[in-house]
């Protein structure tokens, strides 16, 4: 059996498989299915300064080989998360988790980061910069390099833990975004978030999702995610956690070959609650079959071509 152990800033992973933010709640819904300690780590549901109900229903639509969601960062607010959800999660998962967080202003991010990074079992923050910047007219933090750099810098200044910045794929130049946040002090990058998409009810003509647009993810986005991880992992010196469409051990290995040092698995958890442990088993089998002793051998294997 190959060595799957990976060490990243703030995270000591027994294997590189991490359920992605927003598809695993705070872990409780999965504990009936399997022992969460099988996982490398867990990225918690995106947390914000204040409690948020999120968007009206419907929040979910479907696309070919994927789903569209517009949850709108529903969460109980960072203070509640630190006081309740994280301690509850600590009871069922021994390792450190990724503290995924969002915000709609610089202050939001900074205050949330200061509080969330204090939590005992948060190993690192994961800054979701795909939220619209309400104050500056709804433009996303995640689409302008300077804005992304500023939020990274301000969060780094208050965070007691390493910071991963989670990039949005809805940009012309993903490498520019990555370099901007690296420059601003990010300890790692996680990518990709969802692609903006829509579906319509053909009878009424109405967008299916109440919020009109939604984030598209699942197998359909894998080739886009692989391309972006390939480009970014070669352009920066900090580790990349890769995600987008991973639903098998084979997909996870392909993502690491593209350049990811670990992977997150999103939608797949929703379709099959056992997705993550299955992916870990499949990775083990496939690496054996490929004659690989240590997972590090495949990270960025494609870069030599």
């Amino acid at each position, binding site marked *: 059996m190959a060595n799957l152990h990976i060490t990243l800033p703030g995270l000591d992973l027994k294997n590189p498989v991490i359920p992605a933010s927003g*598809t695993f*709640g705070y872990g409780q819904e999965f504990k009936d299915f399997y022992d969460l300690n099988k996982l490398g780590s867990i990225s918690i*549901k995106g947390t914000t300064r204040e409690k948020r109900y999120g968007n009206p229903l419907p929040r*979910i639509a479907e696309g070919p080989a994927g789903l569209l969601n517009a949850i709108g960062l529903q969460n109980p607010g960072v203070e509640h998360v630190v006081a309740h959800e994280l301690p509850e999660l600590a009871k069922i998962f021994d390792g450190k988790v990724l503290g995924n967080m969002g915000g709609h202003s610089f202050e939001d991010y900074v205050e949330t980061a200061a509080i969330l990074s204090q939590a005992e079992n948060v190993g690192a923050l994961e800054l979701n910069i795909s939220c619209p910047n309400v104050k500056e007219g709804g433009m996303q933090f995640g689409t302008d390099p300077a804005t992304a750099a500023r939020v990274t810098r301000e969060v780094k200044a208050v965070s007691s833990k390493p910071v991963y910045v989670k990039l949005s794929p809805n940009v012309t130049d993903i490498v520019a975004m990555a370099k901007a946040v690296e420059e601003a002090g990010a300890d790692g990058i996680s990518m990709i978030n969802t692609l903006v998409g829509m579906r319509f009810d053909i009878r009424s003509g109405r967008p299916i999702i109440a919020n009109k647009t939604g984030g598209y993810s699942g*197998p359909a986005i894998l080739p886009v995610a692989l391309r972006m991880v390939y480009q970014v992992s070669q352009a920066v010196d900090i580790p990349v956690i890769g995600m987008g469409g991973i639903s098998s051990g084979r997909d996870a290995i392909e993502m690491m070959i593209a350049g990811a040092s670990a992977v997150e698995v999103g939608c797949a958890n929703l379709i099959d*609650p056992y997705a993550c442990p299955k992916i870990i088993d499949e990775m083990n089998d496939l690496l054996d079959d490929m004659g690989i002793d240590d997972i590090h051998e495949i990270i960025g294997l494609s870069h030599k071509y």
Partner: protein
Amino acid sequence: MASQTFMKVLSNKELIKDVFEMVVEGDTSAITTPGQFVNLKLNKYQEPYLRRPMSICDYDDHTLTMIYKVVGTGTKLLSEIRPGHKIDMLTGLGHGFVYQNEKSALLIGGGLGLPPLYKLAKELLKKGVDVKLVVGFASKKDAFYLDEFKDLCPVFVATMDGTLGTKGTVIDAIKENNLSYEHYYACGPLPMLKALAKFDDQHGSLSYEARMGCGFGACMGCSMEMKDGSSKRVCYEGPVFASSEVKIDG
């Protein structure tokens, strides 16, 4: 407690045009109350990608019955499944109808909301409750399962076009027949549930639907905002909510 299991199809028969009854066999131990649902992965391919939620119409210790209408890709596929085939399902999902110690209960179904009331009727009758059913359909040709219910309890029908029973909604039928109850249990389309919550917000249990990402509480795809500002997941805290806790408007 949610659990994943594979169940073998025993029968899949068309009751009326496009409405099917499917009986499957397997481990039903995760199901605890009427009104819970299952979530079906219809094939090993990614089409459709999401699971499809279906109410449990009836169950015993080794079988489970669903009634569904063909409305799109997923239900079309479901209708084509032959006996012997095994279906990947998550079962025991959500919190169903909870007996409120009432002596008389009115079950209110709207269209494809009728199925989960079947097992509920059986359970309430076992407890000695006086049970009546009101059910609304668009038209006489959309009616199904009436004989099955008539074997259990009195049945009152409403149709929008008046081709069967009261012309109008279930509320019209309740009024026309002067139906009284200590508690009512309802499942049906959103407008019906809203009308009922307005009609009587104190004594009802309402079963909701929502487009679902997971069906077991993980994605927040189905969270409804409640009257008190809290939010509850249709798939987890629901699908059944008290008529007193739901928002009537919006």
